[in-house]
């Protein structure tokens, strides 16, 4: 077992046998030896290679598509366009990733009347080789009528802005505006009398912020393979966060019954929310059907991943907060404009909840606007919407604290929400560990060690995420040697086979090594929501716990029959069962119990008690005054995990979220030219953090058990990405005296801000 020096556990919890230990993950050997099969690793006899033609224009009407030359090329087996898609209903459905209009989903897969972003799919080809498929793409002729691109909130809101979607009218909680607009919806949360609250303030800070489009940046590009049989049965192999979400999207878009579709999960090389929406699967199905029922594999290039899959929203944000002289917040106001990309569906709703959630204040108003622009349709990205708004709010809170001469942790403690306090949407918070996180950071070695040196500064910020429960199903099969086969349908993105098997082992009272988890397909396991919303270890963990309890009860029942004793006299003892003088170990009990009939139990759960998550973070930075480069010297993340089932993987989630947040804060952004063409569609130019860009990321796991879970588990996957941008902005301010109000805080931006402050004008 490795020593993990950078982590510490804050609160004593019940002594579990398995939960809280750090075993090797069940799929570990396959993944370090190269045997694990990911989306692009699949190969089937006769398999064809698919390629997708994508729009070079950001906004245009499609006048005509001519595929005849491509179809005539030897080796080409199928060409499909939007004409091959059934006309999708203008209907809103929840297909596992939040509500979406089916017509928009369909139009995003293959553009119909208009292309709405650079990289929008127009046609797909299947051929006997990749090079033939690529030649075929070059033979497809598309006539466009170019339209002016609308790239930002500012442009989209102009009265004379071109409309992306002619039939889009602003929805204000069920009421449609009469005139069409690029604003898809407006929501508002409010309590108290806002201006009265501001009148009580000794100090009001009112600032505007801008954040850019960023991508999840999973290392495995999207990959999907489909085979349609002559009888209409469809099998899809997909690298996805949710096989049932793929099934429902494909069924709706292609007008197929779910009974005709089987989705088989491959291993998945990262997702972070970006592998819930489908892009390739329906195209692979159409191509296979048109190509004489041969299997077709589609794998995206990195450029396609960046131009054509869902990144997360850029945003324009206004934050106005008032505080009294003691630092108590008197009023809070937010205006959030989130870019949804080409179709409605930015995460502005979640952002509106995240905004002021850490602050107990009875006077607030949050307005959220979902705005369409000519960029790829936004998709979920780790705590969707949270990072943007927290960057803005935490910057303003820091400015208030500094102006009032308050320590930033003290400022947050004065205003911290506790159990029973309400989020901006007025939902009360259940048991949370926010104050414990603030205290843990204040007591950390990092925070107690003074930072010295020129151009250096320390920043603090916090974040809230509500987490999710959702539906999970699982089956446990008892083998006669006492081992347990454990079938789930939750995609394992980051070690959930381990965290789930551990909970089953704990519940059943057996060794972790005796549980054999397996990820099933849609035909072998009952319905299961996506691996997302920080739900898997919580909700599928609930299912694992229930399986253990059920299996244990069934074993007691069978032993009671065998021993001819009342079932309530059969008890768990040590690693086995006992009744009076009779005693057997677990393996022997399994052998006895399975003699007459095999033993298998199943369960389905939909737990509601998903506890909310908080994280508090601290960074030390050094800013190079000559280049504007920000170096992160030291970083500490504190997070309430409820109960860390596998602490190493909890730390991994915390460190990974921080790393993505640092990339978002300091370097990552989509860069478009005035024509709406993406200029940095590669991993050289879309600059994600490397090992050289980051320090060790120290973790402090706080454990305030979630009463809604048998082991106290809270989701840990997402909240960690919310505070980094604010943390770093505050640190940069303390290092330089300059407050940056736009992300990313890249060297050119930091340098411009430094020059602006000093009055230096290099080009004068």
């Amino acid at each position, binding site marked *: 077992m490795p020593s993990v020096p950078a982590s510490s556990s804050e609160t004593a919890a019940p002594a579990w046998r398995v939960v809280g230990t750090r075993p090797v993950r069940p799929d570990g050997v396959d993944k*370090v*030896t190269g045997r694990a099969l990911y989306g692009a690793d699949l190969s089937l006899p006769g398999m064809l290679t698919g390629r997708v033609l994508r729009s070079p224009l950001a906004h245009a009407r499609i006048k005509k598509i001519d595929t005849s030359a491509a179809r005539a090329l030897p080796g080409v087996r199928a060409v499909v366009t939007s004409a091959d898609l059934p006309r999708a209903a203008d209907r809103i459905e929840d297909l596992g990733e939040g509500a979406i209009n089916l017509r928009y989903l369909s139009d995003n897969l293959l553009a119909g009347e208009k292309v709405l972003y650079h990289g929008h799919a127009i046609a797909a080809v299947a051929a006997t080789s990749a090079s033939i498929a690529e030649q075929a793409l070059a033979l497809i002729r598309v006539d466009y009528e170019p339209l002016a691109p609308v790239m930002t909130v500012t442009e989209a809101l102009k009265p004379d802005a071109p409309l992306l979607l002619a039939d889009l009218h602003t929805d204000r909680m069920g009421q449609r505006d009469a005139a069409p607009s690029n604003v898809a919806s407006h929501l508002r949360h409010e309590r108290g009398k806002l201006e009265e609250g501001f009148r009580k303030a000794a100090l009001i800070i009112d600032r505007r912020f801008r954040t850019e489009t960023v991508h999840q940046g999973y290392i495995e590009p999207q990959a999907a393979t489909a085979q349609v049989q002559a009888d209409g049965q469809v099998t899809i192999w997909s690298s996805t966060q949710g096989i049932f979400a793929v099934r429902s999207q494909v069924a709706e878009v292609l007008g197929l019954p779910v009974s005709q579709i089987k989705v088989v999960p491959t*291993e998945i090389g990262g997702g972070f929310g970006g592998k819930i929406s489908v892009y390739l699967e329906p195209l692979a199905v159409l191509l296979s059907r048109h190509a004489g029922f041969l299997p077709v594999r589609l794998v995206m290039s*990195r450029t396609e991943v960046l131009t054509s899959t869902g990144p997360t929203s850029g945003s324009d944000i206004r934050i106005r907060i008032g505080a009294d002289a003691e630092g108590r917040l008197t009023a809070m106001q937010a205006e959030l404009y989130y870019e949804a990309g080409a179709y409605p569906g930015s995460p502005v709703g979640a952002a509106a909840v995240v905004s002021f959630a850490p602050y107990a204040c009875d006077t607030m108003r949050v307005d959220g606007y979902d705005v369409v622009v000519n960029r790829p349709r936004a998709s979920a990205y780790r705590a969707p919407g949270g990072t943007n708004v927290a960057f803005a709010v935490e910057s303003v809170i820091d400015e208030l604290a500094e102006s009032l001469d308050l320590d930033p942790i003290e400022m947050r403690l004065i205003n911290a929400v506790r159990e029973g306090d309400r989020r901006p949407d007025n939902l009360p918070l259940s048991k949370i560990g926010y104050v414990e996180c603030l205290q843990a950071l204040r007591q950390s070695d990092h925070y107690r060690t003074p930072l010295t040196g020129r151009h250096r500064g320390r920043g603090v910020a916090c974040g809230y995420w509500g987490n999710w429960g959702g539906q999970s199903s699982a089956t446990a099969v008892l083998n006669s040697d006492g081992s347990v086969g454990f079938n789930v349908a939750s995609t394992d993105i980051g070690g959930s086979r381990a965290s789930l098997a551990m909970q089953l082992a704990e519940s059943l009272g057996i060794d972790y090594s005796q549980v054999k988890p397996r990820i099933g397909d849609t035909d072998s396991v009952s319905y299961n929501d996506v691996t997302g919303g920080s739900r898997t270890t919580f909700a599928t963990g609930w299912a694992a716990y229930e399986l253990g309890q059920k299996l244990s009860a069934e074993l007691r029942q069978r032993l009671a029959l065998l021993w001819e004793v009342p079932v309530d006299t059969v008890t768990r003892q040590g690693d086995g069962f006992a009744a009076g003088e009779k005693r057997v170990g677990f393996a022997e009990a399994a052998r006895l119990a399975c003699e007459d009939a095999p033993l298998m139990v199943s369960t389905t759960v939909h737990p509601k008690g998903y506890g909310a998550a908080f994280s508090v973070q601290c960074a030390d930075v050094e800013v190079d005054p000559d280049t504007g480069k920000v170096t992160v010297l030291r970083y500490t993340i504190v997070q309430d995990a409820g109960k860390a089932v596998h602490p190493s993987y909890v730390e991994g989630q915390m460190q990974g979220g921080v790393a993505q947040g640092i990339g978002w804060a300091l370097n990552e952004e989509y860069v478009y030219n005035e024509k709406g063409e993406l200029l940095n569609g590669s991993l050289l130019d879309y600059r994600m*953090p490397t090992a050289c860009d980051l320090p060790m990321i120290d973790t402090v796991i706080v454990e305030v058990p979630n009463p809604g879970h048998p082991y106290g588990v809270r989701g840990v996957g997402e909240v960690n990405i919310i505070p980094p941008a604010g943390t770093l902005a505050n640190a940069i301010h303390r290092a330089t005296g300059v407050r940056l109000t736009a992300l990313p805080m890249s060297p050119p931006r930091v340098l411009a801000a430094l020059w602006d402050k000093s009055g230096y004008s290099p080009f004068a």
Partner: protein
Amino acid sequence: MRKKSVLEFTLNGETRAVLCEPQQTLLEVLRDELRLTGTKEGCSNGNCGACNVLLDGVLVNSCLILALEVQGRTLLTVEGLARSDGTLHPLQQAFLDHAALQCGICTPGFLLSAKALLDEHPLPTESQVRFWLAGNLCRCTGYDKIVRAVLDVARTQAAQPPSVSATPV
């Protein structure tokens, strides 16, 4: 169809011959012709390191090398890291023990980069580790546990007699 040529080289200790087209990259031939899919494709232009392999002991991006350039040379991929008896390479074991992978797609590339580092610098500093791994992108871990795993292997091997820590291939 372009004319195919025979490529002969030593792959993970065995002599292999395979037909390949002149424009095919080493990565394509490994994955599509030899069906060795442990070497991953993340970007196809040398930016992510998921396809890293050792060519005559030197770390390279297999997506940036034409397969025919490997004629007569010696290649190590992730499939050749463990011993034939199944014993994992110390780096593979350390990645498991330290939970240095989450989704695992970048892991093969990291293992090869780390091996190249330790072959040249048996006892590297943390900044040396970070420098040698900077060509490998990981989006899940924040690198912390990967760096610790590599440092741990280096320290363990330095503390052991060379015969025990000898690595295969």
